Protein backbone atom coordinates (compact mmCIF):
# COMPACT_ATOMS: atom_id res chain seq x y z
CA UNK A 1 0.00 0.00 0.00
CA UNK A 2 2.74 2.45 1.02
CA UNK A 3 4.86 1.65 -2.01
CA UNK A 4 1.87 2.02 -4.32
CA UNK A 5 0.83 5.33 -2.77
CA UNK A 6 4.39 6.66 -3.13
CA UNK A 7 4.49 5.68 -6.80
CA UNK A 8 1.01 7.02 -7.36
CA UNK A 9 2.00 10.45 -6.04
CA UNK A 10 5.07 10.50 -8.28
CA UNK A 11 2.92 9.53 -11.26
CA UNK A 12 1.08 12.81 -10.89
CA UNK A 13 3.85 15.03 -9.52
CA UNK A 14 6.58 14.15 -12.04
CA UNK A 15 4.45 15.63 -14.84
CA UNK A 16 4.34 18.98 -13.06
CA UNK A 17 8.07 18.93 -12.35
CA UNK A 18 9.14 18.11 -15.89
CA UNK A 19 6.66 20.42 -17.61
CA UNK A 20 7.56 23.16 -15.12
CA UNK A 21 11.22 22.70 -16.07
CA UNK A 22 10.41 22.86 -19.79
CA UNK A 23 8.46 26.10 -19.36
CA UNK A 24 11.18 27.49 -17.13
CA UNK A 25 13.59 27.14 -20.06
CA UNK A 26 11.67 30.00 -21.67
CA UNK A 27 12.57 32.39 -18.86
CA UNK A 28 14.22 35.28 -20.69
CA UNK A 29 13.70 33.50 -24.03
CA UNK A 30 9.95 33.80 -24.62
CA UNK A 31 8.79 35.14 -27.99
CA UNK A 32 7.47 38.28 -26.26
CA UNK A 33 7.71 39.66 -22.75
CA UNK A 34 4.07 38.84 -21.89
CA UNK A 35 4.38 35.23 -23.08
CA UNK A 36 7.70 34.85 -21.32
CA UNK A 37 6.11 35.98 -18.06
CA UNK A 38 3.02 33.81 -18.59
CA UNK A 39 5.06 30.66 -19.25
CA UNK A 40 7.25 31.21 -16.21
CA UNK A 41 4.16 31.95 -14.09
CA UNK A 42 2.67 28.62 -15.16
CA UNK A 43 6.02 26.99 -14.47
CA UNK A 44 6.00 28.46 -10.97
CA UNK A 45 2.48 27.14 -10.30
CA UNK A 46 3.57 23.69 -11.45
CA UNK A 47 6.68 23.74 -9.25
CA UNK A 48 4.57 24.81 -6.28
CA UNK A 49 2.23 21.90 -6.87
CA UNK A 50 5.19 19.56 -7.31
CA UNK A 51 6.56 20.62 -3.94
CA UNK A 52 3.28 19.84 -2.19
CA UNK A 53 3.20 16.38 -3.79
CA UNK A 54 6.88 15.62 -3.13
CA UNK A 55 6.65 16.74 0.50
CA UNK A 56 3.82 14.28 0.91
CA UNK A 57 5.67 11.56 -1.03
CA UNK A 58 8.72 12.05 1.23
CA UNK A 59 6.51 11.63 4.27
CA UNK A 60 4.96 8.47 2.85
CA UNK A 61 8.36 7.03 1.99
CA UNK A 62 9.91 7.86 5.35
CA UNK A 63 13.56 6.72 5.76
CA UNK A 64 14.62 10.36 5.95
CA UNK A 65 13.59 11.10 2.35
CA UNK A 66 13.16 14.78 1.44
CA UNK A 67 11.38 16.62 -1.37
CA UNK A 68 14.78 17.60 -2.76
CA UNK A 69 16.02 13.99 -3.00
CA UNK A 70 12.91 13.08 -4.91
CA UNK A 71 13.19 16.02 -7.27
CA UNK A 72 16.93 15.99 -7.88
CA UNK A 73 18.50 12.64 -7.09
CA UNK A 74 16.57 10.05 -9.03
CA UNK A 75 17.89 8.47 -12.21
CA UNK A 76 16.16 8.93 -15.53
CA UNK A 77 14.41 5.57 -15.37
CA UNK A 78 12.94 6.44 -11.98
CA UNK A 79 10.97 9.41 -13.32
CA UNK A 80 7.47 8.34 -14.31
CA UNK A 81 6.24 11.45 -16.12
CA UNK A 82 4.28 11.31 -19.37
CA UNK A 83 6.32 11.36 -22.59
CA UNK A 84 4.24 14.36 -23.67
CA UNK A 85 5.55 16.75 -21.02
CA UNK A 86 9.23 16.05 -21.67
CA UNK A 87 9.02 17.00 -25.35
CA UNK A 88 11.21 20.03 -26.15
CA UNK A 89 9.93 23.55 -26.75
CA UNK A 90 11.15 23.55 -30.36
CA UNK A 91 8.94 26.51 -31.36
CA UNK A 92 6.08 28.44 -29.76
CA UNK A 93 3.42 26.34 -31.52
CA UNK A 94 4.90 23.14 -30.10
CA UNK A 95 5.12 24.69 -26.61
CA UNK A 96 1.45 25.72 -26.72
CA UNK A 97 0.25 22.44 -28.27
CA UNK A 98 2.05 20.47 -25.52
CA UNK A 99 0.60 22.77 -22.88
CA UNK A 100 -2.93 22.53 -24.23
CA UNK A 101 -2.89 18.73 -24.58
CA UNK A 102 -1.63 18.48 -21.00
CA UNK A 103 -3.83 21.20 -19.47
CA UNK A 104 -7.09 19.60 -20.60
CA UNK A 105 -5.92 16.31 -19.06
CA UNK A 106 -4.57 17.95 -15.92
CA UNK A 107 -7.84 19.77 -15.28
CA UNK A 108 -9.97 16.64 -15.69
CA UNK A 109 -7.58 14.62 -13.53
CA UNK A 110 -7.63 17.16 -10.69
CA UNK A 111 -11.40 17.39 -10.88
CA UNK A 112 -11.51 13.68 -9.97
CA UNK A 113 -8.60 13.80 -7.54
CA UNK A 114 -10.50 16.39 -5.50
CA UNK A 115 -12.80 13.54 -4.50
CA UNK A 116 -9.96 11.25 -3.37
CA UNK A 117 -10.30 9.52 0.00
CA UNK A 118 -6.74 10.64 0.66
CA UNK A 119 -7.22 14.06 2.25
CA UNK A 120 -3.76 15.38 1.41
CA UNK A 121 -4.13 14.55 -2.27
CA UNK A 122 -7.64 16.00 -2.29
CA UNK A 123 -6.35 19.23 -0.69
CA UNK A 124 -3.52 19.58 -3.23
CA UNK A 125 -6.00 18.93 -6.06
CA UNK A 126 -8.44 21.56 -4.76
CA UNK A 127 -5.65 24.09 -4.52
CA UNK A 128 -4.09 23.24 -7.89
CA UNK A 129 -7.23 23.15 -9.98
CA UNK A 130 -7.80 26.86 -9.43
CA UNK A 131 -4.39 27.54 -10.95
CA UNK A 132 -4.77 24.99 -13.72
CA UNK A 133 -8.01 26.55 -14.92
CA UNK A 134 -5.95 29.66 -15.75
CA UNK A 135 -3.35 27.54 -17.54
CA UNK A 136 -6.06 25.86 -19.59
CA UNK A 137 -7.63 29.16 -20.54
CA UNK A 138 -4.25 30.52 -21.62
CA UNK A 139 -3.26 27.53 -23.76
CA UNK A 140 -6.75 27.13 -25.28
CA UNK A 141 -6.72 30.79 -26.29
CA UNK A 142 -3.40 30.35 -28.00
CA UNK A 143 -4.52 27.23 -29.87
CA UNK A 144 -7.42 29.29 -31.25
CA UNK A 145 -5.30 32.36 -32.01
CA UNK A 146 -2.65 30.36 -33.82
CA UNK A 147 -5.07 27.99 -35.57
CA UNK A 148 -7.40 30.73 -36.70
CA UNK A 149 -4.57 33.19 -37.26
CA UNK A 150 -2.32 33.52 -40.30
CA UNK A 151 -1.52 30.82 -42.84
CA UNK A 152 1.88 30.30 -41.23
CA UNK A 153 0.61 30.14 -37.64
CA UNK A 154 -2.14 27.72 -38.72
CA UNK A 155 0.35 25.45 -40.40
CA UNK A 156 2.77 25.50 -37.46
CA UNK A 157 0.18 24.73 -34.80
CA UNK A 158 -1.31 21.94 -36.94
CA UNK A 159 2.17 20.44 -37.35
CA UNK A 160 2.72 20.64 -33.60
CA UNK A 161 -0.61 18.98 -32.78
CA UNK A 162 0.12 16.26 -35.35
CA UNK A 163 3.60 15.68 -33.92
CA UNK A 164 2.44 15.44 -30.30
CA UNK A 165 -0.73 13.45 -30.89
CA UNK A 166 1.20 10.19 -30.70
CA UNK A 167 1.75 10.86 -26.97
CA UNK A 168 -1.91 11.38 -26.06
CA UNK A 169 -2.91 7.73 -25.68
CA UNK A 170 -0.40 7.26 -22.87
CA UNK A 171 -2.26 9.80 -20.74
CA UNK A 172 -4.84 7.10 -20.08
CA UNK A 173 -2.61 4.07 -19.47
CA UNK A 174 -3.00 2.79 -15.94
CA UNK A 175 -0.05 1.47 -13.95
CA UNK A 176 -0.01 -1.08 -11.14
CA UNK A 177 0.10 1.81 -8.66
CA UNK A 178 -2.91 3.42 -10.36
CA UNK A 179 -4.93 0.22 -10.13
CA UNK A 180 -4.02 -0.37 -6.49
CA UNK A 181 -4.95 3.20 -5.57
CA UNK A 182 -8.23 3.11 -7.50
CA UNK A 183 -9.15 0.02 -5.48
CA UNK A 184 -8.48 1.99 -2.28
CA UNK A 185 -10.67 4.92 -3.38
CA UNK A 186 -7.57 7.11 -3.45
CA UNK A 187 -6.60 7.07 -7.10
CA UNK A 188 -8.43 8.36 -10.15
CA UNK A 189 -9.72 5.95 -12.78
CA UNK A 190 -8.29 7.64 -15.88
CA UNK A 191 -10.49 5.73 -18.31
CA UNK A 192 -13.45 7.53 -16.76
CA UNK A 193 -12.67 10.80 -18.52
CA UNK A 194 -10.88 9.58 -21.63
CA UNK A 195 -13.85 10.25 -23.94
CA UNK A 196 -14.46 13.62 -22.34
CA UNK A 197 -10.80 14.51 -22.88
CA UNK A 198 -10.86 13.78 -26.60
CA UNK A 199 -14.20 15.53 -27.00
CA UNK A 200 -12.94 18.67 -25.29
CA UNK A 201 -9.71 18.69 -27.27
CA UNK A 202 -11.59 18.13 -30.54
CA UNK A 203 -14.02 20.97 -29.77
CA UNK A 204 -11.20 23.47 -29.24
CA UNK A 205 -9.33 22.25 -32.32
CA UNK A 206 -12.48 22.66 -34.38
CA UNK A 207 -12.97 26.17 -33.09
CA UNK A 208 -9.36 26.83 -34.04
CA UNK A 209 -10.05 25.52 -37.57
CA UNK A 210 -7.60 22.68 -36.92
CA UNK A 211 -7.91 18.98 -37.73
CA UNK A 212 -7.83 16.15 -35.23
CA UNK A 213 -4.89 14.00 -36.40
CA UNK A 214 -5.68 10.47 -37.59
CA UNK A 215 -2.62 8.97 -35.91
CA UNK A 216 -2.91 5.22 -35.63
CA UNK A 217 0.23 4.42 -33.70
CA UNK A 218 0.88 5.73 -30.21
CA UNK A 219 4.00 6.07 -28.10
CA UNK A 220 4.14 4.85 -24.53
CA UNK A 221 6.67 4.15 -21.81
CA UNK A 222 6.99 7.29 -19.70
CA UNK A 223 4.90 5.86 -16.89
CA UNK A 224 7.27 2.88 -16.75
CA UNK A 225 10.36 5.10 -16.78
CA UNK A 226 11.19 4.42 -20.44
CA UNK A 227 11.62 7.90 -21.87
CA UNK A 228 12.37 9.66 -25.13
CA UNK A 229 15.94 10.88 -25.54
CA UNK A 230 14.88 14.39 -24.49
CA UNK A 231 14.44 13.64 -20.79
CA UNK A 232 18.11 12.86 -20.17
CA UNK A 233 19.19 16.30 -21.38
CA UNK A 234 16.47 17.97 -19.35
CA UNK A 235 17.53 16.12 -16.20
CA UNK A 236 21.18 16.96 -16.65
CA UNK A 237 20.17 20.61 -16.52
CA UNK A 238 17.70 20.13 -13.68
CA UNK A 239 20.04 18.07 -11.51
CA UNK A 240 23.25 19.92 -12.24
CA UNK A 241 23.54 21.80 -8.93
CA UNK A 242 22.71 18.86 -6.67
CA UNK A 243 25.05 16.53 -8.56
CA UNK A 244 27.91 19.04 -8.58
CA UNK A 245 27.48 20.27 -5.01
CA UNK A 246 25.82 17.37 -3.16
CA UNK A 247 23.47 18.38 -0.33
CA UNK A 248 23.63 22.06 -1.18
CA UNK A 249 20.80 24.15 0.22
CA UNK A 250 19.68 27.69 -0.47
Amino acid at each position, binding site marked *: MKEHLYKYILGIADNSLILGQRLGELCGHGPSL*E*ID*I*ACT*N*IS*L*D*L*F*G*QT*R*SYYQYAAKVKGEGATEDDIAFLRREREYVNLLLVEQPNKNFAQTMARQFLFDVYHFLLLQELEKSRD*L*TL*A*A*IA*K*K*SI*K*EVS*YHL*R*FSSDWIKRLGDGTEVSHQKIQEAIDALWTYTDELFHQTEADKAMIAEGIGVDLTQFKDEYFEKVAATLEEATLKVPDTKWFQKGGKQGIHTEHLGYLLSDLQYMQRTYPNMEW
Partner: protein
Amino acid sequence: MTIEQQIEKELIPILEQVSDPEIPVLSIMDMGVVRTAIIENNKVKIQITPTYSGCPAMDVIGDDIQKALSDAGYQSEIELILAPAWTTDWITPKGRKALEDYGIAAPLDPISDKAALLEDQKIVKCTICGSQNTKLVSQFGSTACKALFKCGDCQEPFDYFKCLK
Protein backbone atom coordinates in the same frame (compact mmCIF):
# COMPACT_ATOMS: atom_id res chain seq x y z
CA MET B 1 -13.28 37.06 8.59
CA THR B 2 -14.45 33.64 7.58
CA ILE B 3 -15.74 30.86 9.77
CA GLU B 4 -12.64 28.71 9.66
CA GLN B 5 -10.39 31.48 10.86
CA GLN B 6 -9.37 31.37 14.52
CA ILE B 7 -7.09 34.12 15.72
CA GLU B 8 -6.55 35.30 19.28
CA LYS B 9 -7.34 38.99 19.73
CA GLU B 10 -4.08 39.98 21.34
CA LEU B 11 -2.12 38.63 18.36
CA ILE B 12 -4.01 40.61 15.73
CA PRO B 13 -2.08 43.91 16.12
CA ILE B 14 1.21 42.03 15.83
CA LEU B 15 0.17 40.07 12.75
CA GLU B 16 -1.22 43.21 11.13
CA GLN B 17 2.29 44.63 11.03
CA VAL B 18 3.47 41.83 8.74
CA SER B 19 2.95 42.65 5.09
CA ASP B 20 3.03 40.70 1.87
CA PRO B 21 6.60 41.19 0.55
CA GLU B 22 5.31 41.50 -3.02
CA ILE B 23 2.48 43.90 -2.19
CA PRO B 24 3.86 45.84 0.78
CA VAL B 25 0.66 47.86 1.37
CA LEU B 26 -1.27 44.71 2.14
CA SER B 27 -0.99 43.14 5.57
CA ILE B 28 -1.13 39.37 5.75
CA MET B 29 -4.27 39.74 7.86
CA ASP B 30 -6.02 41.71 5.11
CA MET B 31 -4.80 39.12 2.65
CA GLY B 32 -6.46 36.35 4.65
CA VAL B 33 -3.47 34.00 4.59
CA VAL B 34 -3.35 33.58 8.38
CA ARG B 35 -5.89 30.89 9.24
CA THR B 36 -5.21 30.23 12.92
CA ALA B 37 -3.10 31.88 15.57
CA ILE B 38 -3.46 30.47 19.05
CA ILE B 39 -1.34 30.63 22.19
CA GLU B 40 -0.54 27.28 23.75
CA ASN B 41 1.90 26.93 26.65
CA ASN B 42 3.49 30.34 25.95
CA LYS B 43 4.03 29.40 22.33
CA VAL B 44 2.10 30.81 19.40
CA LYS B 45 0.90 28.29 16.89
CA ILE B 46 0.22 29.77 13.49
CA GLN B 47 -1.25 28.22 10.40
CA ILE B 48 -0.83 30.06 7.11
CA THR B 49 -2.08 29.09 3.67
CA PRO B 50 -0.49 30.05 0.34
CA THR B 51 -2.31 32.23 -2.18
CA TYR B 52 -0.81 30.22 -5.06
CA SER B 53 1.00 26.86 -4.71
CA GLY B 54 4.25 28.27 -6.00
CA CYS B 55 4.03 31.62 -4.23
CA PRO B 56 7.66 32.42 -3.41
CA ALA B 57 6.53 34.92 -0.78
CA MET B 58 5.35 32.22 1.64
CA ASP B 59 8.78 31.47 3.09
CA VAL B 60 9.42 35.17 3.65
CA ILE B 61 5.99 35.63 5.21
CA GLY B 62 6.70 32.75 7.62
CA ASP B 63 10.04 34.30 8.62
CA ASP B 64 8.48 37.76 9.01
CA ILE B 65 5.73 36.40 11.26
CA GLN B 66 8.27 34.67 13.48
CA LYS B 67 10.29 37.84 13.71
CA ALA B 68 7.29 40.04 14.53
CA LEU B 69 6.16 37.63 17.23
CA SER B 70 9.61 37.27 18.70
CA ASP B 71 9.92 41.09 18.88
CA ALA B 72 6.68 41.02 20.86
CA GLY B 73 8.09 38.36 23.17
CA TYR B 74 6.45 35.26 21.74
CA GLN B 75 7.97 32.03 20.56
CA SER B 76 6.17 30.68 17.54
CA GLU B 77 5.67 27.68 15.35
CA ILE B 78 4.47 28.08 11.78
CA GLU B 79 2.65 25.49 9.76
CA LEU B 80 1.74 25.74 6.09
CA ILE B 81 -1.68 24.28 5.34
CA LEU B 82 -3.40 23.71 1.97
CA ALA B 83 -7.01 23.09 2.96
CA PRO B 84 -9.28 24.93 2.75
CA ALA B 85 -7.68 26.49 -0.31
CA TRP B 86 -7.20 30.25 -0.27
CA THR B 87 -9.66 32.37 -2.21
CA THR B 88 -9.68 36.06 -3.10
CA ASP B 89 -12.91 36.27 -1.03
CA TRP B 90 -10.70 36.24 2.04
CA ILE B 91 -9.18 39.62 1.17
CA THR B 92 -10.85 42.05 3.58
CA PRO B 93 -12.61 45.27 2.43
CA LYS B 94 -9.69 47.19 3.93
CA GLY B 95 -7.32 45.01 1.92
CA ARG B 96 -9.25 45.62 -1.28
CA LYS B 97 -9.05 49.35 -0.72
CA ALA B 98 -5.31 49.12 -0.01
CA LEU B 99 -4.83 47.23 -3.29
CA GLU B 100 -6.74 49.85 -5.28
CA ASP B 101 -4.84 52.70 -3.64
CA TYR B 102 -1.59 50.93 -4.48
CA GLY B 103 -2.59 50.72 -8.14
CA ILE B 104 -3.75 47.13 -8.36
CA ALA B 105 -7.40 46.61 -9.40
CA ALA B 106 -9.16 44.42 -6.82
CA PRO B 107 -10.64 41.06 -7.89
CA LEU B 108 -14.19 40.95 -9.27
CA ASP B 109 -16.51 37.98 -8.80
CA PRO B 110 -15.78 34.80 -10.84
CA ILE B 111 -18.33 35.49 -13.60
CA SER B 112 -17.21 39.08 -14.15
CA ASP B 113 -13.62 37.96 -13.84
CA LYS B 114 -14.08 35.51 -16.68
CA ALA B 115 -15.88 38.10 -18.78
CA ALA B 116 -13.08 40.58 -18.16
CA LEU B 117 -10.29 38.12 -18.88
CA LEU B 118 -11.98 36.88 -22.03
CA GLU B 119 -12.43 40.52 -23.04
CA ASP B 120 -16.19 40.06 -23.34
CA GLN B 121 -16.85 43.09 -21.17
CA LYS B 122 -14.92 46.12 -20.14
CA ILE B 123 -15.40 46.09 -16.40
CA VAL B 124 -11.95 46.35 -14.87
CA LYS B 125 -11.46 49.99 -13.96
CA CYS B 126 -8.16 51.72 -14.57
CA THR B 127 -6.59 52.32 -11.15
CA ILE B 128 -5.05 55.55 -12.37
CA CYS B 129 -7.84 57.42 -14.16
CA GLY B 130 -10.89 55.28 -13.35
CA SER B 131 -11.79 54.66 -17.00
CA GLN B 132 -13.42 51.38 -17.97
CA ASN B 133 -11.93 51.56 -21.42
CA THR B 134 -9.31 48.98 -20.46
CA LYS B 135 -7.83 46.02 -22.26
CA LEU B 136 -6.25 42.81 -21.05
CA VAL B 137 -2.61 42.60 -22.09
CA SER B 138 -1.79 39.28 -20.43
CA GLN B 139 -3.54 36.87 -18.07
CA PHE B 140 -0.27 36.48 -16.22
CA GLY B 141 1.30 39.57 -14.72
CA SER B 142 4.32 40.37 -12.58
CA THR B 143 3.30 37.74 -10.01
CA ALA B 144 1.14 34.62 -10.23
CA CYS B 145 -1.83 36.38 -8.63
CA LYS B 146 -2.06 39.25 -11.10
CA ALA B 147 -3.08 39.90 -14.71
CA LEU B 148 -1.78 42.83 -16.74
CA PHE B 149 -4.18 45.43 -18.13
CA LYS B 150 -3.76 48.61 -20.14
CA CYS B 151 -5.98 51.67 -20.05
CA GLY B 152 -7.24 52.93 -23.41
CA ASP B 153 -7.71 56.47 -22.11
CA CYS B 154 -4.67 57.32 -20.03
CA GLN B 155 -2.61 54.65 -21.86
CA GLU B 156 -1.01 53.45 -18.62
CA PRO B 157 -0.55 49.76 -17.82
CA PHE B 158 -1.80 48.46 -14.47
CA ASP B 159 -2.18 45.19 -12.56
CA TYR B 160 -5.42 43.40 -11.84
CA PHE B 161 -5.63 40.96 -8.93
CA LYS B 162 -7.18 37.83 -10.46
CA CYS B 163 -10.18 36.26 -8.82
CA LEU B 164 -9.38 32.85 -7.34
CA LYS B 165 -12.18 30.65 -6.05
